[in-house]
């Protein structure tokens, strides 16, 4: 187990280093960063001063070394637009994104698992076919377009829910959370639904596939033969066994929800870090783009690691395997 963790950590560092190199080469080497840093009217002398001040006159590997050194101490440069450390700007916006992602995931799970269970238990029924057709539709709907439709129907025509922004927040555990506030929740509902749609389809299909595989297995037939009530067979025996792959996938998908929030946040003007990075790309605010990419990649690797470990905890077979390695 310890070996597995250590190996994963080493791999993690490698991935971070490669990503940072890629991002560094891409962002810092393409084009002239000096153009970004100085006033367009600045004369040659001023440009040279900035070049030396930011170390841009040094060879590339020195610059990369300095970039890494600073990055390790949590300094990814100041945002050109906000004039504050880029990391701070990102971290400030992170709770809004995480909140949106969590709400979307909850919606997908709460609706998806029961529908998937039903479709798996009665695969040939009319309703089950309808659920499956709906899930293909859910896969095919372009997320951003659905977002527009949601705004058009629920915000513009019906006027039930606000179309953009985050609304008021409630401070809890040192974070500003809007879903604890009624008006805030109303603001979060449309974007979270939009974000949840794709994952909902995924969870339905996954649950159904798991159920169909498991109901044929001996342990379910044994439980039925013992005369246990159907409710218990499904609710305890079946559910427990299909949970392992579900938890894994849901965990991994949490990361992808955070990434896809870029799109949803842009549509609904949700002030999270996804909206921030899109704005930063357009404003050529390089430090913020770099900080976003590195922080997100790190977040991702962390999520993957936790899911892997969780998987080992949940499934004894994996635990046994890894101890043999």
């Amino acid at each position, binding site marked *: 187990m310890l070996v597995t963790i250590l190996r994963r950590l080493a791999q993690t560092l490698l991935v971070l280093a490669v990503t940072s190199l890629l991002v560094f080469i891409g962002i810092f080497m393409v084009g002239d960063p000096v153009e970004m840093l100085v006033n367009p009217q600045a004369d040659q002398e001023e440009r040279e001063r900035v070049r030396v001040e930011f170390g841009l006159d040094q060879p590339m590997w020195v610059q990369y070394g300095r970039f890494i050194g600073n990055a390790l101490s949590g300094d990814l440069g100041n945002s050109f637009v906000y004039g504050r450390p880029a990391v701070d700007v990102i971290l400030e916006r992170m709770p809004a994104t995480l909140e949106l992602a969590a709400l979307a995931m909850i919606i997908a799970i709460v609706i998806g698992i029961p529908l998937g269970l039903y479709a798996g238990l009665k695969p040939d029924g009319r309703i089950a076919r309808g659920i499956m057709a709906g899930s293909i539709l859910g896969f095919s709907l*372009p997320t*951003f*377009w659905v977002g527009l439709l949601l705004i058009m129907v629920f915000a513009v025509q019906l006027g039930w829910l606000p179309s953009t922004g985050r609304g008021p927040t409630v401070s809890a555990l040192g974070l500003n959370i809007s879903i604890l506030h009624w008006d805030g929740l109303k603001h979060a509902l449309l974007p979270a639904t939009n974000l949840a749609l794709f994952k909902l389809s995924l969870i339905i299909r996954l649950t159904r596939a798991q159920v169909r595989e498991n109901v044929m297995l001996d342990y379910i037939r044994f439980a039925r033969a013992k005369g246990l009530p159907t409710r218990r067979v499904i609710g305890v025996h079946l559910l427990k066994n299909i949970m392992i792959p579900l938890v894994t996938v849901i965990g991994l998908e949490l990361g992808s929800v955070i990434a896809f929030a870029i*799109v949803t946040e842009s549509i609904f003007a949700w002030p999270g870090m996804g909206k921030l990075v899109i704005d930063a790309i357009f404003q050529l605010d390089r430090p913020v783009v770099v900080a976003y990419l590195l922080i997100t*990649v790190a977040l*991702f690797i962390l999520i993957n690691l936790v899911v892997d470990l969780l998987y080992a905890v949940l499934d004894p077979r994996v635990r046994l395997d890894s101890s043999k390695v």
Partner: protein
Amino acid sequence: MSPWARFRSDFAASHLAMAGLLMLALILLLALVAPWIAPQNPYDLGKLDLMDARLPPGSASMDGALQYRLGTDGQGRDMVSAILYGLRVSLLVGAASGLIAMLLGGGLGILAAYLGGRFEQVLMRIVDIQLGFPAILVALILIATLGKGVDKVIIALITVQWAYYARTARSAALSERNKEYMDAARGLGLSRASIVLRHLLPNALPPLIVVGTVQVAHAIALEATLSFLGLGLPTTEPSLGLLISNGYEFMLSGKYWISVYPGIALLLTILSINLVGDQLRDVLNPRLAR
């Protein structure tokens, strides 16, 4: 029954899949003949009349020469024409990136299975790591570092997709490698290239085709998403995603048609590909073989 006939009858067993296939054929045909059937050339800015901008569906143009069945966009473009041309762009980008990714990823995957050893280990590790990240993030990293442009979007789409093909091709090739016909081919003393290209590849192809259909749908959706975010294709030849994006600003004032109709075209395209892909997966899956 020949394998091909059985494949056809298996595929046709699902009405939904047949409907998807029909729809896909129709969409491809429309995209193909767009220049001849579109009422106007939406790329020819000289032909567009700003007086005609944002007309609702069914209105006639100011000079009375044209009827805008689906309305016009902010620049006075006929939406029917814009959608037909946009369909071409979206399909072309999706298919081109899908094909290149399939050749690249599929080739590497089969090579990995055939060569094994260090090459296989390193390649599969890269695949695993890349697939741990969602497509949109990988595409965003690339576009943010490389910059915008058609070539960059295609590079991003290939980078996002190749790993799926590599993984599928490798596992397909691995399961084929030890079958009897491969032993026979080796026993006949055929060259390595001939074994891989003429014997291994054709048999490893079905799963690649299944992944391919799904991936083309993903690529089209991802390109549309990037274009919507303003990070995709240039505005001179708008894809469906960009058309939707252009209509976004008019949406709140109730001018729905600029975004809604291109969105429906995009949805039908992706849906038809997914319906076909879903059935292909069932038909070509050896585990469900009848």
